């Protein structure tokens, strides 16, 4: 095969163009994440697309930073908070994170909804020594083994499954437990937690039923649970699947005690999309009750009315506050001499730290902050009833 001179020239130019970004990247150092006047903190999250309801997490963090700035900032620096919409698409997450790290310059990220989206940028952030506090998802891969720059707040689904099962057996006195779980790491982690707890009672699930994210008809799955005589069914599924499960159960006369992970703890939403069937459902929760009189909850609720009047005061909105809160504490501990290393050191020093979420303990060897949840129940009209205050998982092996 022969190439003409012209073809060779065009080919060479194309290769040169393709190499330019790599060369440019190699020579460029990252812009700093702070200066004398401001600290830049970023967050990605779905503001549009199918997961947009969870976009309120990123907006909740904004409320906290706005409050901090209103109170004068931290050691003379204001926080500049930059949100980016990733549409819950890992490829988009990579793009927006790179933009913030390489063009804007950020000291840290907070929150960030989604396991897959987070996993897509986890190694990139660590390689560039960018601190990431409070991923808005529970994934073993974030914190095991310890990533020196990543600090998790969200309780692991294994721990939650275990605590919920203990509640069903000990408090509700139900022995026939079924499980409906999404066939991915979220659902399987929950299943593992439920099974590990049942093993301590020498019990087994009467039925364990997987559902695929694309399933829209759950009749046969619900019939498996009904046929097994499940008195309680633990769900680790998406809001849509939970709604379909409850509607289908109602049409075939199956009325177990539904128990779910905290991902379905937005009761007003769940009550609405199930046409009221959500009443009586028990869930885990990673934050105080929305109407809690905890002094910080009162403060944030009032601030939200003032600074973000258009926002609904829902669990995912103020989850954005509790995921971001530890970095504010760490920045206060660092003082004026800020650096990434100093921030990491301050985060590693956070012990027995409790605001509106679970108790957080971090150290150099352990970056999974919490294993505790509250247990709540949906009351009339999507209201919240506290059944059990913060409870840690005594079976959590990662703490030992």
């Amino acid at each position, binding site marked *: 095969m022969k190439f003409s001179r012209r073809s060779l020239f065009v080919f060479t130019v194309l290769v040169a163009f393709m190499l330019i970004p790599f060369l440019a990247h190699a020579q460029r150092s990252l812009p700093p994440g702070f200066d004398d006047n401001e600290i830049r903190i970023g967050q990605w999250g779905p503001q549009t697309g*199918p997961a947009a309801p969870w976009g309120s997490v990123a907006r909740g963090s904004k409320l906290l930073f706005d409050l901090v700035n209103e109170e004068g900032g931290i050691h003379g620096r204001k926080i500049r908070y930059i949100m980016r919409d990733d549409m819950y698409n890992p490829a988009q997450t990579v793009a927006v994170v790179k933009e913030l790290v390489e063009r804007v310059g950020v000291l840290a990220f907070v929150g960030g909804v989604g396991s897959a989206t987070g996993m897509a940028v986890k190694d990139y952030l660590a390689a560039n020594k960018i601190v990431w506090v409070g991923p808005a998802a529970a994934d073993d891969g974030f914190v095991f083994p310890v990533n020196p720059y990543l600090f998790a707040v969200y309780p692991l689904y294994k721990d939650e499954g275990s605590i919920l099962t203990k509640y069903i057996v000990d408090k509700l006195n139900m022995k026939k437990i079924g499980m409906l779980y999404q066939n991915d790491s979220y659902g399987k982690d929950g299943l593992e937690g439920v099974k590990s707890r049942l093993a301590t009672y020498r019990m087994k699930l009467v039925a364990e039923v997987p559902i695929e994210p694309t399933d829209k*008809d759950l009749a*046969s*799955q619900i*019939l*498996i649970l009904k046929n097994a005589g499940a008195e309680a069914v633990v769900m680790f599924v998406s809001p849509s699947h939970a709604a379909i499960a409850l509607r289908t159960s*109602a*049409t075939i006369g199956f009325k177990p005690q539904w128990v779910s992970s905290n991902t379905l703890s937005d009761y007003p939403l769940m009550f609405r999309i199930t046409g009221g069937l959500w009443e009586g459902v028990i869930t885990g929760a990673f934050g105080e009750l929305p109407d809690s009189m905890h002094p910080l909850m009162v403060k944030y609720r009032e601030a939200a009315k003032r600074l973000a009047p258009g926002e609904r005061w829902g669990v995912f909105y103020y989850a954005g506050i509790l995921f971001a809160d530890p970095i504010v504490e760490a920045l206060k501990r660092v003082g004026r001499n800020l650096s990434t290393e100093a921030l990491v050191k301050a985060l590693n020093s956070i012990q027995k730290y409790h605001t509106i979420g679970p108790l957080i303990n971090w150290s150099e060897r352990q970056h999974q902050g919490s294993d505790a949840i509250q247990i709540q129940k949906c009351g009339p009209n999507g209201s919240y009833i506290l059944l059990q205050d913060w409870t840690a998982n005594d079976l959590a092996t990662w703490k030992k």
Partner: protein
Amino acid sequence: MPVGQLLVEGLAIGACYGFFAIAVVIIYKTSEVINFSQGGMAMISAYVAFHILTVYQYPFWLAFIITMIFAILLGVLIEYCFLRPAKHPSILGLIVITLGAEMFLVGLASWKWGAEQQYFNLPFDQSVTYEPVPGMVMNNWALAVFVVAIILMTFLFVFFKYTKLGVAMRATQQNKHAAKIMGIRTERVFAFAWGLSSLLGAVAGMFFASRAVLDPTYMMEPYMRAFAGAVLGGLMSIPGVIIGGLLMGLIENFFGFVYPHWKPIIAFVVIILVLCIRPSGLFAKHYVKKV
């Protein structure tokens, strides 16, 4: 195994797939276009019903009638705006056009109503159940699906067999140029087919929404299953696609009960096997295009 209950559930969801598949087949029968925006059209119509019910708080049946009129206009509009301007498009071109229309409709719904799930209900209590035979719990949703499926089948049979428009649609499908020479205004026939198809899809969309939740992508999966049911039954046969849909529902439910991991794919595996033996589907005559 609760055979009776699985039968009821399988037939109910299968009938729903079936009459959604009819919507696909009506367009295919007249213009040989596989409409990949069928799910999006049904979704938009269901959202319109939801909007009328929740924002204007009209009674259900008035909202239903307005929605049906909207659905017909939507179908005609999509044919007029997306399909008609394409001059001599290839099959691939038509697929891309309908896929583009689907993306447009999903984007439109996200923009107008947001991505958050919404509750949609039909005007009866779905939790009311009957047990005509021990072990066969029947509910209002399943009863409504069966009744609507029977009415639609009868209507379509009469329409295609005995009405001028129905015959014109069949003639257009068999030979567009001959139909034109015989005085049939084929462009109007295409527009009517899209309108009718959109109307049937809207009814199916409302049934699916009342079983699950309403969100901009909720019809994608039912569309895939309905389409598969249509292929299984034979894309040119209306009774065939209803039976194809029913088979889809039954296979999924019975197999899903024993092997829940396999539920999402088993029906497609069966379809591949059937199509290997009968490429035109179970109930269509083998179709050979004359050159």
